[in-house]
């Protein structure tokens, strides 16, 4: 079962996340290296040692500070931060729910300590979430008891499941296979074992599977 290994055809949600993360990683890494490097250089250069002249320092009483420098610093860091924040806003479609006509809607209920998945025909699966390939899937997530965290690592999507609140997430699986679904919000003693499977099948296999589902919904489960 795959946890978060690279997929051949990258799903759109992963693409969005990776692109955005790269901006943060590159700019954040560069900032860390520059600032820490400068600090370490200054310490090495200015450390007290025999024979070193202590530099003269001109201190002006009532000096209100180097505001020019601050403004320049704010311009530089501010524009970097504004850029990444802009990219975050531009990537909001990872969390905003699309509304395509042929999307598959599945109800998800978290409970101590398992997930259940309810399909349009009322069938509830307590083991696996089965979805067709290359289709937008919208999950309506809630909880039957305490707060859970629904997370599919290989697709980079997640949403909290809370009692009485229905929240949504979407994804589009682009490779068949079996992936892991975990709970990411501490929900009790069984939290670590609250693991389900995401089964991605080709459209025809999915349709076959779906048509064989029992027509009558099981007595328990559902929202």
């Amino acid at each position, binding site marked *: 079962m795959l946890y978060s290994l690279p997929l051949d055809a990258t799903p759109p949600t992963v693409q969005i996340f990776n692109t955005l993360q790269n901006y943060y990683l590159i700019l954040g890494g560069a900032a860390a290296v520059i600032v820490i490097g400068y600090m370490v250089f200054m310490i090495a250069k200015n450390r*007290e040692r025999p024979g070193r002249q202590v530099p003269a320092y001109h201190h002006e009483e009532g000096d209100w500070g180097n505001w020019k420098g601050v403004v320049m610093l*704010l311009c530089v860091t501010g524009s970097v931060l504004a850029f990444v924040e802009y990219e*975050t*806003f531009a990537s909001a479609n990872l969390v905003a729910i699309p509304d395509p006509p042929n999307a598959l809607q599945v109800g998800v209920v978290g409970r101590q300590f398992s997930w259940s998945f309810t399909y349009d025909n009322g069938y509830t699966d307590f083991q696996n979430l089965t979805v067709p390939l290359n289709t937008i899937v919208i999950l309506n997530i809630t909880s039957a008891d*305490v707060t859970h965290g629904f997370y599919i690592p290989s697709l980079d999507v997640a949403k909290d499941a809370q009692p009485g609140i229905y929240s949504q997430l979407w994804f589009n699986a682009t490779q068949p296979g079996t992936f892991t679904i975990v709970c990411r919000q501490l929900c009790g003693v069984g939290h670590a*074992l609250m693991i389900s499977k995401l089964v991605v099948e080709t459209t025809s296999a999915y349709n076959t599977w779906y048509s064989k589902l029992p027509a009558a919904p099981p007595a328990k489960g559902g929202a």
Partner: protein
Amino acid sequence: MNAWLSRWLYTTNHKDVGLLYIAGSMYFGFVGAILILLVRVELAIPVCATGVSGMCWPSATQTFLSAASFNQAVTLHGLIMILWFLSPLAIGLANYFLPLQIGAADLALPRVNAFGYWLWLFGGITATIGFFLPGGNTAGGWTAYSPLSSSTFSPGAGPTLAFAGLIMLATSITVGSINILLTVAVERGPGITWRKIPMFSWFIIFTIVAMLFSFPSFLAALLLLISDRVLGTMYYSASAGGSILWDDLFWFFGHPEVYVVLLPAFGLIAEIFPVFSGRPLAEKNIILICTGAIVIPLSYMVWSHHMFLTGVTLSEDEAFSVATILISLPFDVITLAFIKTLTRSSIRLTAPMIFCIGSVFLFIIGGITGVFLSSFVLDVVYNNTYFVVGHFHYVMVGAAIFGLIAGLYYYIPIMTGKMYHEKMANWHFITSFIGFNILYFPMFFLYDMPRRIYTYQSLPSWNTLNLISTVGAFIFAASQIFLLANIVWTLRAGKISPPNPWGATTPEWVPVITGASHGAAASMGSMPGAEAGEHHRHESSRPIWLATGIAVSFLGLALLVYSWGIAVFILGLAIDGFAVIGWMYEDLHETFHMPEGVTERWPFNAIPKMRLGMWIFLSTDVIVFGAILGAYLYIRSFTPDWPIPGSVHEIPLGLANTIVLLTSGLTAFLALESIKEGKQRNMIMWLCATFILGATFLGIKGAEWYNLYFVKGFTWNSSIAGSTYYFTVGLHAAHVTVGLVLMAYLIRKAMMGGYTKENHAGIENFALYWAFVDIVWIFVFPLFYLL
């Protein structure tokens, strides 16, 4: 009683209390460290049986800790480290050095300070008792998310005790904040104007302002939680939005708390960097403005970034994401100002300085990863994973603890009068810095591993990184032995320190203020107060008794599941009554001497000390009541079938009671006006009238409750409408009751001639308090009876 014991139990001296805080926080730090070492052992390798398709199915016999123990360990590790180790270590240093830095003789309210300490200590003990009870301690994470923390999903006395301990902590911090703020406002030594306050004290002031309005929100959230657990009200369980209600109230406290932990360390860096760089701090004013004017107000407006995945609207996510990005800007400026202090300098690399450099180094990494987490898109993946764990440990352990340890080394010469072992301190830094990075850096690569899981799927990348992290944890923990050994060595064999070993220029090292005692003179060896001579009696047994009483009554509340719990509860109340009466006795007969002196107090010249204290207290009470009324409004918005107004409550009765309370507001005001003109008899008459009206209010309230509860069956555990009504009105009634107790004291003192035209502060403060209680009712009456 043994002089040594009575000194430490009954002391109200700020230096003694500071040392007690430091010692207590180190004890709790040790407990928290042991807990997390158990956790790291558990996580070192994925212990599991081979399961279906490579899945890891752990069996209970194979794991080092059971799932339940693991959850308790991580939960209490978080609570203890943040609230009983990090903050109190800083508060201990502040207790000791803030009065010295600002030339105050002591804190403004010494007994309240001691009370805060004992309440904090007993709170910590109360919170850990649960480990030894059947059912264990709270196990829902330090964030205690509802409804997992409710009695349905976390039954037993252990969690209740933990939350009771947190209530004691929040109360302690709130009164402590009021006390320190009051000290800074009106007790500064002559010549210490605001511009001359040293940096550490400034950052403590900022810390206090961040605590002042955040802890009351936590207190409100906890009161609701404990009422849910003990009385069976339904704040977090009945309504659909219960989980979000806790999230909001908790994180409204929880995010400013991050700055509460961080800022004292920054204050120490700002103090230590210039001393060891041989030059003044660069951009001091800009640092102050950035922290005071931007970080502190903004710290209250970013909490919702902890809730990106809860399903709140996208626009709210965006707003809080922008606020979070904005709060990183002042920190850029502050960090670079610190680094600028290293330019054109001559740096002495002794222990305090090395630890400060380590702190800034680690803060840069922690801060930049924090920017990652401000993105509500990246948070989809990082939320509740080891990336978050790595980030906040870089800030809280890296920046904060390294800074606080620097402060300990820096101030050891004052606190002990001796010099620590420099070599040992250097080794302490080297081992802990290396251990720290081995421990936490791998966590950034574990950004897809959920936190708080006690076992995990065996994945090659996870296994290695977790093992490395565990090794680092042991190195980091072991390195702290250097610190302990160094403290012991210093006390036993350390060389006597010169008065100012570092060549610092701040007042705690260079006594420039007459009246304030020089730091090094009153070290652990000598009795404080002895050198000043004129202190009459600076010990009081009341604070520790009051705190004991509160702890015992909470113990009783948590043990209400047993029939004898109520006896314990009543015993606690009795101890409290005894302590309060004793406290008032000390005041009536002035057996407790409060140090006072000539002070600098702009812009508070015109306002007496106790009145300012009352105002600060009321401002925190605004948050408590605001949060609870907010909770009511929020729950109503989620509950479709609210009873129609007028169908439950007797509106004429409510109106009558409102009139009674408003009239008592008038009589309280007239009592104050009378004494302002020196008419003592009139004042006593008006006070008695106020007392009678207040008691009438409670009496009518009682009759109303009796009717609602027993006749109409409208109880606090029957519907959410009942829960909100009884809780809010009950909290208000508790305030009225406190007012009645205060009035009894005032009337007694007035009959002894204790108030005159010139000296009537007690009456004035009471009038303020009583008017505030009126104002709360002005909102409660329409909200619960009419709307």
